[in-house]
């Protein structure tokens, strides 16, 4: 079942890549639709970020002093100013580890 859904997800992804290049007239997407599509990353990824930080493995809201909130704030600040993907991820992880293992 997992395999089948991976294959379907792969086909769906490939179609998104291929359809405008090979099959349909590119003018099919109006300017308005294109403008909205440009927001897709901002409209999708917070749905992974927010629950990944604020909701724990048991589906319960975390306390406001949870180390994940601290880690996320550090990552946002480092990412915003450094523009570096690795620095963003590692700074968040390390600050999270420092709190759970040292404090």
């Amino acid at each position, binding site marked *: *079942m997992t*395999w089948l859904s991976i294959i379907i*997800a792969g086909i769906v992804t490939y179609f998104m890549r291929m359809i*405008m290049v090979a099959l349909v007239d590119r003018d099919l997407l109006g300017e308005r639709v294109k*403008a909205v599509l440009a927001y*897709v990353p*901002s*409209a999708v990824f*917070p749905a992974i970020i927010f629950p990944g930080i604020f909701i724990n493995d048991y589906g319960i809201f975390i306390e406001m002093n949870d180390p994940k909130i601290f880690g996320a704030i550090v990552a946002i600040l480092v990412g915003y100013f450094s523009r570096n*993907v690795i620095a963003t991820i590692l700074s968040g992880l390390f600050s999270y580890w420092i709190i759970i293992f040292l404090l």
Partner: protein
Amino acid sequence: MLSKKQIFTKGILAVAPHMFSVIPFGVVCGAIGIELGFSPILVYAMSIIIFGGASQIVFLQLLSGGASALIAVTSVGVINSRHLLYGAVLSEYLEKLSFIKKLLISYLVVDQGFAESNKFFQKNRNETHLHYHLLGSGGTLWVCWQISTLAGIILGSFVPEELGLKFAVPLTFIAIVVQDLKKLDHVIVMITCGLSSLLFFDAPFKSYIIISPIIALFVAALVLRLKK
């Protein structure tokens, strides 16, 4: 006129700086798949079949959290719908290719390759072998993605659970969107999506992952209208 080989090489060089983010992202992607309890073969097969970092992580995370296959597949579709935009932009430059070549080259289009090749296309409209740039950029990214996810899968089997590597998932996506925090319209869309995802988190089949982007895109359309 540049030769095919020259353009191909330019494509490779154009994405080279992106390796600093693509390779660690691939490693994280492979390691997280293992951490979430999936088999190494399955995690690796996704790198070939889907070949899209963000959507691979989301897919595995949703399934491991008990989402239905339909929701997981739909969310991959929503995340990768941005490729419709890339395709629409690229089609202008790939028009002269045969249908088969169009089918093949489409597989290689990913974010970084699109960004770099599109820049090259805009400046070199009159070159005959433009698509070789996309082959160079996309091909390089493909090879690096395969190697780095494999490395992550191997590393992931050694990472102890206490480290809480799952927290790398939201951090990875923070790294992807953090630069857009500079734009107010994007911030509004992000907050809408994030708050909706918390609000609808308990909706059946993990459908928050579809509901919140739809609400956020609706807000994006409103924001666009207000901007005019």
